[in-house]
């Protein structure tokens, strides 16, 4: 992605080719820029790509425009006129990425001041707003060790008396982190709110504004002390939902209302423009006192999440066992099955002490492994049925249990035990979505 002819990003250059003269500042090349092409930002603001082949290139001024990265800002804060102490921990993602219009460089930073610019009314609601930039990572690059860092950082904020903690996060794996935090942070005195954006914050149409504006409302009005995902409930900017972190999933690759509760209903909604708070779900973990708050932030990285599919190679399971994996979450078919050929591999894994949990790739509904032969055989082989847990939630739960509970029998017992409402024993008929049928 280097520039041809020794040109450097930020240089003001003149390119003469076929009697046309182009003057502009050299921009950073993209992944798709041809090797012989230099991108120039012209005086009218447009970027154009010019091949330097057979062209006369003249540097008018070296380093004409400054184009450079910025160091992580550990902590910035701002005082407001309200009463809420709000902390935001930034991990990266679309919500904090901005394209600099001068350069086209993506700057994934966010300061307290910039947060206020996004949602100026926060100043009326907070006494103090602090922003801690923890990582600048895209959500697909986060690992269970990052969950630990986030959990520790959130715990610090809660212990120092925050009335609400926002975690800015990429949306792709937001529900994994949400579930992980739900197991790590117990007896919460305030909501922990994961917020993201499907349209980056530098766009006039960004969804981050509404999502962020809902946070102080939830922090001050919600009766629950749970980890929630706070995202658009509709493609209109009409309401924002607080989903239970262990029961939520990104169900669309790009829509702003991509996040939906599965096998449960959202905990609350905030309607705009009036910002009215409405509790939707009576089943919640109430706010606890700060003294009872606990944090166990460790996660095992020796857990795998694999999906059963027709013709699945049973060697995958053998491989994981040989690699020293401690747990496997299976996303089985239907009520919780893998092909008959793999049952022996599963039995061997269980005998080796690997904990295997079954969830369903249907997402909606509960596994029931007693209905069909293969299911019954899997139970006898030692597989733990994961009830109506989402595969992601089961994955985070198993990773957390294996890092924090030494006794494997206890891990097995806790896996089927409802810890933070990750299991919902009662499915009302309404909690299955109505699809469009023409």
């Amino acid at each position, binding site marked *: 992605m280097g520039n041809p002819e020794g040109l450097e990003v930020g240089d003001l250059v003149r390119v003469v080719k076929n009697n046309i003269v182009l003057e502009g500042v050299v921009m950073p090349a993209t992944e798709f820029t041809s090797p012989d092409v230099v991108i120039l930002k012209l005086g009218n603001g447009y970027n154009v*790509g010019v091949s330097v082949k057979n062209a006369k290139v003249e540097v008018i001024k070296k380093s004409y425009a400054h184009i450079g990265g910025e160091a992580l800002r550990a902590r910035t804060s701002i005082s407001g006129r309200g009463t809420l102490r709000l902390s935001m921990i930034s991990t990266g993602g679309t919500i904090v990425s901005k394209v600099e219009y001068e350069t086209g460089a993506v700057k994934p930073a966010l300061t307290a001041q910039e947060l206020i610019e996004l949602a100026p009314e926060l100043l009326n609601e907070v006494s103090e707003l602090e922003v801690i930039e923890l990582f600048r990572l895209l959500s697909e690059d986060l690992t269970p060790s990052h969950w630990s860092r986030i959990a520790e950082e959130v715990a610090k904020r809660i212990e120092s008396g925050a009335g609400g903690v926002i975690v800015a996060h990429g949306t792709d794996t937001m529900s994994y982190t949400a579930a992980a935090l739900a197991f790590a942070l117990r007896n919460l005195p305030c909501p922990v709110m994961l917020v993201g954006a499907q349209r980056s914050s530098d766009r006039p149409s960004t969804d981050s504004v509404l999502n962020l504006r809902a946070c102080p409302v939830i922090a001050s009005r919600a009766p629950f002390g749970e980890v929630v995902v706070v995202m658009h409930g509709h493609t209109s900017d009409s309401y924002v939902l607080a989903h239970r972190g262990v029961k939520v999933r990104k169900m669309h690759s790009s829509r702003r209302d991509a996040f939906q509760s599965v096998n449960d209903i959202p905990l609350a909604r905030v309607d705009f423009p009036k910002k009215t708070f409405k509790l939707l779900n009576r089943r919640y973990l109430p706010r606890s006192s700060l003294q009872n708050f606990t944090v166990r932030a460790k996660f095992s990285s020796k857990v795998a999440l694999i999906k059963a599919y027709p013709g699945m190679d049973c060697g995958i399971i053998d491989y994981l066992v040989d690699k020293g994996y401690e747990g496997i979450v299976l996303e089985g078919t239907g009520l919780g099955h893998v092909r008959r050929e793999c049952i022996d591999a599963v039995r061997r894994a269980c005998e080796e002490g690997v904990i295997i949990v079954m969830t369903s790739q249907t997402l909606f509904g509960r596994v029931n492994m007693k209905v069909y032969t293969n299911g019954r055989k899997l139970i006898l082989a030692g597989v733990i049925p994961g009830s109506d847990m989402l595969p992601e939630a089961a994955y985070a739960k198993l990773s957390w249990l294996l890092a924090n509970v030494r006794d494997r029998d206890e891990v097995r017992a806790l896996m089927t035990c409802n810890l933070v409402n990750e299991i919902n024993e009662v499915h009302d008929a309404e909690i299955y979505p109505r699809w469009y049928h023409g």
Partner: protein
Amino acid sequence: MDEQIDYVRLGLKVGLEIHQQLDTKHKLFCDCPTELADSSTPVSEVERYLKVTKSEVGEVDPAALYEIKRGRKIIYQIPKGHACLVELDEEPPHELNREALKITIAIAKALHSRILDEIYVMRKIVVDGSNPTGFQRTAVVAIGGYIDDEDGRVGIQTICVEEDAARKIDEAAGYVKYNLDRLGIPLIEISTAPDIRTPEQAMRVALRIGLLMRLTGKVKRGIGTIRQDLNISISEGEKIEIKGVSKLELIPKVIRYEVQRQLKLMDIKRELRKRGVRADEITCNIKDITDILRSSNSKLVHRELRKGHRAYAIGLKKFKGILGVEVQPNRRFGTELSDYARAWGGVSGIIHSDELPKYGIIEDIVVSIYKYLKLDPERDAFVVVISDRERAERALSAVVERVRYALVGIPKETRGANPDGTTRYLRPQPGAARMYPETDVPPIRIDEGLLKEAELLKPKTPEELLKELVSRHGLNKEMATQLIKDPLLPMYLDLVRELGELIKPQLIATTLLIYLKGLKSEGLNIDSLTEDDIKKVLQAVGDGRIAKEAIPEVLSAYLRKNVENVEEAINMFTQISVEELRQLVRKIVEENKNAVSRKGTKAFGLIMGKVMSLVRGRIDGKIVANVVQEVLQEFHSEDS
């Protein structure tokens, strides 16, 4: 007045920006069709708000920007089958439409423009809500080039391909509503250098570029598919941008009126200096004059007051008569102030002293206002706004700013074209547009393959076209040359394409160049004729329903509104057979038998006149004469 103005001496410089919708299969960044929805298309609605950063004002009217910043709701209508998640800003854009790119390249080549090596799509911030993303996607495809004109070569600056905006369908306090069908239709934008020197040259160049685009056969036709923006300056004036000239024929008028406006504003400046007006004397000292106006019988005033509004006034010392100066036909300096009040305050307009007494505000009340404002009725002026306090304040302070600028000269403005060729103030000219790279769309390398495909769409040159009009259409050289320069040429080409099998191109050219001009010289408004109307009439000739001589008569009857629609006009002139004619002549002779008997052979003139008044254009006159002769002979031989 035009004859007296030497535009070259005034240093007139005009640049054109032409936007034309391309007739592609799909939109620019998604796979939706490029046809607009109709009233039967089912729609759903989505509501959004836009975030506006103060540094990114861009091209928005001040009052609209104010509303958006205060949280104006934007409602989008999604017509089923005409917009998808991409238009709704719920899905990233697909790759740039290669068909649109090819057409753009073909037009750029015809303009001798240099195609760039790699095309980068940009986001241009637009926060009026006309795009759910809050920006318009646009890319420069080619740079440089020229178009030749009899008054000199006119340079091309840039050629872009971009997405059209959503269609505004409703607006009221607190919300604005758009339909998403038009959003994303590809547009080509051609910007010329300010090399144009006369109003006529501007029209010729616009016509020439328009024709060139039409000749690709790949651009949309009809209302709203092409739009011209102008930038106009004279040496002692200012560069003014004028948006949205939808008719080519209006271009010279818009330029003349703008030059007139700038000259008048310079006159006003000189007059104010002569009167010794100083900027610090022009202050925004707002007085509530509701109680004075309440005593008037003005319906306008009372309608506003009933809404709970109040009347606010400011005085303008030494301005008597200035607000009444006509700067464009039927637009006074006061009208310009009214534009500012509307644009900045969102009020319905102003009332000023130079137009009073009017609106039921009688002289006594005018005197009372002068007195209350402590002004001299012989020397001073005042401006009134009836609205709520907040809007009135914004409106009147904008008026004061504008009045102060009258001492300096001509403010840099973006103006909108009115249908009569005059213009109105829209907003101040924005600074350089804020452009961000569109990171969701990969760049496109212009390779040999793409250039070759574009070559196939390249329009003919005017010389090639002229040759074709003579050799293939059979027009004589003179008519072909005239046609090439005529704004109706695209219509001619369309009609030939559609009716060429049925009627001779010669007749189509005659209809457009001779018959229409004749009707215009009779004072008829030929602009109200659509291409479809003309097509129907020509079709009727082709089908043998009417004689070709009847074309001007049919059009005339239609334009004179003697009939409901063009179909009825055609029916009036439908051909009759010789047998039908004979029956008609016999009937008329019978009705006039006494006169015919008396006059003998001299009765021919009488009967011929009466018959022709009924059948003119419906059958050849020679046949009528023959039949009348025969019937009269028949009558006389029976009579004797």
